[in-house]
């Protein structure tokens, strides 16, 4: 019996890994000439009306974080100076996401070449539901469409969809994930963007 269980556990894990769909779906392949030869000069994040309800909870939490940190409210046009990373959790979602995408793509080596504008439309942002996590499993999820454009001419250079899902099962699973969920999801989403733009790395 024990031998069966020992065999079944890794086999099931392998099976589940094989079942996990690729988090990136290509709509229009990113132009070969910009892969590994471009950098992100401009990012615009919009939230689809479909995500508006859930987004408001996150925005309220960010405002709360900002007040607790003793920072003045973010003006409607955004902050004049680039904030430190410690401040990201206190920013409205779109501004936080724009900064994270710029940071991550730069860290992933996209620092020179053709300047790109990324237009990101987020249609899903949700966090794991505690009741569901106890029964089975629940997810943190961030998903949306990324359009890649030439920053100067506006020429379309590619489009893809990113769906980041982090599963948690049980209360322990939820407790272990810690805070900063919004920022972590944005970080992972941005890594997938960088992979699409880098040469020879488009998992």
């Amino acid at each position, binding site marked *: 019996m024990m031998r069966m269980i020992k065999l079944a556990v890794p086999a099931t894990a392998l*099976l589940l890994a094989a*079942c996990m769909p690729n988090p990136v779906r290509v709509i229009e392949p990113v132009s070969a000439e910009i892969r590994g030869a471009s950098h992100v000069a401009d990012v615009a994040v919009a939230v689809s009306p479909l995500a508006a309800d859930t987004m408001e909870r996150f925005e309220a939490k960010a405002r709360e974080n900002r007040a607790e940190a003793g920072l003045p409210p973010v003006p409607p046009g955004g902050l004049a100076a680039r904030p430190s990373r410690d401040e990201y959790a206190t920013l409205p979602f779109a501004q936080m996401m724009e900064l994270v995408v710029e940071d991550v793509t730069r860290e992933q080596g996209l620092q020179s070449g053709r300047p790109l504008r990324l237009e990101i439309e987020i249609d899903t942002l949700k966090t794991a539901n505690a009741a569901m996590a106890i029964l089975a499993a629940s997810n943190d999820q961030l998903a949306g469409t990324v359009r890649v454009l030439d920053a100067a001419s506006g020429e379309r250079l590619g489009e893809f*969809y990113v769906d980041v899902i982090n599963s948690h099962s049980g209360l322990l699973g939820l407790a272990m994930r810690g805070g900063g969920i919004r920022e972590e999801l944005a970080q992972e989403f941005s890594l997938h963007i960088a992979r699409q733009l880098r040469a020879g790395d488009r998992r």
Partner: protein
Amino acid sequence: MRRAAAALGLAAALAAAPAGARTVEYGLTEAEFEQASLAIGAPQPAAMPGRGGAELVVEGAERLDHRLTILGISCSAWQVDNPLSQMVRSALAGWDADGALEPAAGRPLLRVSLRSGSSDLRCVEAREFEPRCLVRTRIAGEATLERPGEEPVTQRFSVEDQQIHERPGACGTLSRGAALSGRAASIALIERLRAMVAAD
């Protein structure tokens, strides 16, 4: 032990196989399109444009046929073939001056060269247990307007339809949503071509 191995093998086979394969059905009546839109909470389908004054010739329609791209995780194992050319040809034939899609003497001729067609779908949980699906169809190509005794005028076009389905239902109904969007994109194409003829 054998049973466990067999069960794992079966599970692996099911995981690898597509959950279902469908083809988008465009041969619906106006009433059936309307019923489909009511069933999945799609926008009310617009009326198909009536006959226009130009003759049309359609080239490269086969380039429009493709497989629906399913974005995100929901229904990602489904495969839906989208023969968009059927819808576009039928819509253009309805707008063609005599429905024949062939040149006729004395009338302006619009040569429609279709370059590409695509469609994608994403289903999201707008609220807990309240899914919504967004379906998008794109058609691209170029059109050349020829009038007797005048220089031909060529324009590129790219039209897109995007619609939200409020009650998408199970994955098996994806093809209905794609049909409604393909029909709306075909109407958008006619509007674009009509503007080209009118402006000239």
